[in-house]
């Protein structure tokens, strides 16, 4: 009980409350602008969180990401351009409702079921995480290795691309994580020192010295998500202007919909929680899968795509639930549930809240505070969301030629702020090019990010396990939990092959026909 009161005290501090409010507004605006994703909003926020208190820093990330996932629905609904990838699954449906003159209902569904989904996800986090922590206390390096590996495999399995390319992207991320001296042996790796004579040249010496500390995650993330987005804006045409439209009551009729689709809502929440809690798979995947499930089990599947609220209810409930559940593996094992928690883990370490099962006993009040922030953010989502929808016509009219220059400037100042080092800015630029090139060629950037974030953890546990077993691979499968995790990981690897083989065998007509454009 005292920890709960302590948690209230932590959250009620004025700096935390102000941070929640400001981060919410920031998240709503950035999420609503097409092309600026929730992950990018979070990545650009990290340099700022360095200078906040631990709870305020976490609160900033939680509230801005929850808001950004919702407000990504706004341009999707009004312009048919998803503001964040998590909205892409049901953008068509929402826009069809707008065309039928039900824009306010569509936006209301997104808002209402997002908030409810977020709260459901938080409750799941509250229940699952401490229970799993008990189990996780018994984990050795073998289990941690498999868990981290499973996270990487899940990320490749759910990527909306070729699994081979996703694995390749993940391996590149692991390779990036190899750079520097931060490895179990403390040997400098891939720092250009391998090439004798190259470090005589001042430029390469400068690069080599900076690579010694490894590639910093935050500049890499800012480059991959923000710089590459500005690059994309340079070569794509401007989005169409927003038609002026008067909106009616946003929340009118939402209660009836809640009563009409209780099963869909619950199923969306559960799907979101499961996908979110899986290491590596996040809100965007949850929305795609929920929309597909909803259509599959609906009594009126023919209405999908014509402005039918059912799919919207389910996937809207799903993506925000996934967001909260994504924190389960992040807090317990330090394994990101999605790209947003991949960033959040860095902040957790920075603020002394090192992820791990002991977090729930040693820093219980901080954990309760984290749950509270989630609840507050999701409740705050409703009034702020309504204001945002009302203002959307103005915000969405901000020209891209005004937003993108500010984003690039934030990239420069933000990456510099991480370590007051100009090399980080150059690093951001380099990763911008990498991200842009990968996106263009069908290599999922999210898999690369997970590789970078989890590289040192995978290697640490892999090498420590190998040293313990004297180079023998058998002990990796001997402990019961590690055997189960190993089986799941291998299943993830085999799954795409199985699907492919099944399709080869089964007749062609069973394949989904492509929707007519």
């Amino acid at each position, binding site marked *: 009980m005292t920890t709960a009161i302590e948690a209230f005290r932590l959250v009620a501090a004025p700096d935390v409350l102000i941070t929640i409010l400001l981060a919410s507004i920031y998240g709503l605006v950035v999420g609503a602008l097409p092309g600026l994703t929730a992950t990018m909003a979070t990545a650009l926020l990290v340099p700022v969180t360095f200078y906040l208190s631990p709870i305020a820093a976490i609160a900033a990330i939680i509230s801005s990401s929850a808001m950004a996932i919702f407000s990504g629905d706004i341009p999707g609904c009004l312009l048919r351009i998803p503001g964040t990838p998590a909205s892409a699954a049901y953008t068509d449906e929402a826009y069809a409702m707008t065309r039928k003159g039900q824009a306010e209902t569509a936006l209301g569904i997104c808002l209402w079921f997002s908030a409810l989904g977020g709260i459901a996800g938080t409750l799941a986090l509250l229940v699952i995480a401490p229970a799993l922590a008990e189990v996780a206390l018994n984990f050795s390096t073998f289990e941690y290795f498999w868990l981290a590996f499973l996270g990487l495999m899940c990320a490749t399995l759910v990527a909306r691309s070729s699994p*081979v390319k996703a694995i390749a992207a993940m391996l590149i991320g692991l390779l990036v994580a190899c750079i520097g001296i931060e490895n179990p042996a403390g040997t400098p790796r891939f720092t250009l020192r391998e090439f004798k004579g190259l470090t005589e040249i001042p430029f390469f010496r400068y690069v080599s010295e900076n690579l010694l500390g490894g590639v910093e995650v935050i500049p890499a993330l800012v480059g991959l998500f923000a*710089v590459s987005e500005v690059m994309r804006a340079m070569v794509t045409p401007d989005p169409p202007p927003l038609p002026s439209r008067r909106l009616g009551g946003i929340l009118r009729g939402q209660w009836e919909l809640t009563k009409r689709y209780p099963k869909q809502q619950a199923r969306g929440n559960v799907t979101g929680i499961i996908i979110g809690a899986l290491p590596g798979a996040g809100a965007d995947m949850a929305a795609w899968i929920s929309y597909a499930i909803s259509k599959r089990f609906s009594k009126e599947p023919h209405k999908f795509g014509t402005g039918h609220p059912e799919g919207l209810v389910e996937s809207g409930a799903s993506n925000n639930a996934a967001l909260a559940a994504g924190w389960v593996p992040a807090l317990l094992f330090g394994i990101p549930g999605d790209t947003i928690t991949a960033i959040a883990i860095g902040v957790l370490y920075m603020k002394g809240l090192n992820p791990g099962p002991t977090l729930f006993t040693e820093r219980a009040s901080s954990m309760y505070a984290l749950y509270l922030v989630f609840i507050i953010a999701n409740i705050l989502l409703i009034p702020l969301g309504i204001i945002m929808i009302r203002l959307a016509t103005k915000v969405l009219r901000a020209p891209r030629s005004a937003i993108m220059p500010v984003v690039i400037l934030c990239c420069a100042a933000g990456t510099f702020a991480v370590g007051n080092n100009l090399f980080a800015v150059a690093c951001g630029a380099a990763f911008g090019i990498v991200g842009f090139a990968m996106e263009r060629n069908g290599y999922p950037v999210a898999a690369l990010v997970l590789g970078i974030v989890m590289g040192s953890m995978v290697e640490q546990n892999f090498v420590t396990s190998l040293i313990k077993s004297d180079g023998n691979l058998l002990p990796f499968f001997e402990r019961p939990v590690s055997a189960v995790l190993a089986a799941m990981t291998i299943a993830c690897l085999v799954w795409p092959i199985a699907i*492919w083989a099944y399709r080869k065998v089964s007749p062609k007509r069973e394949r989904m026909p492509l929707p007519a454009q």
Partner: protein
Amino acid sequence: MHLSDRITGPFLVGLGALAAYGGSRLPPVPGQQIGPNVFPMVVGAGLVLCGAMIALGVGRVFEEEAEADLAAHENPPSPAETRHGPLFGLRALIPPALLLFYVLAVDRLGFFLTAASIVLTASKTLGASWRLAIPLSILAPAAIHLAFNKLLRVPLPPGFLPMPW
């Protein structure tokens, strides 16, 4: 910058081979079988394998499906896109170039002048009018400087034009 899988696949094979070779040359830890060389070699071998599979077109089916799915959910490409010249794609390199300009210039010119020229270039490239670009390139650097230097205490170099705060 869209490259065929026949180019990116062999590139990955090369990268993986380089990583495995570089890893194999790392000095071992005395008295231990497992050193810093194991992980890069495993990852490098994986990349070689993936690169070869990509070059051979394995897994292309999944990608086509996802693309068709996404295309069905997004706006049809506007016809105006096809009018651009061959150098249009190079515009994508402007943002990283601006960041490199920041790295090289900020210590000499100071934050404000560097930032203002970055914003001006970026907004003009994206087709802003002078009426928008000039006020933006004055206000945005000032606001960022205020937020980062004053509130977050990041030491941004003052250069020729120190801010009044």
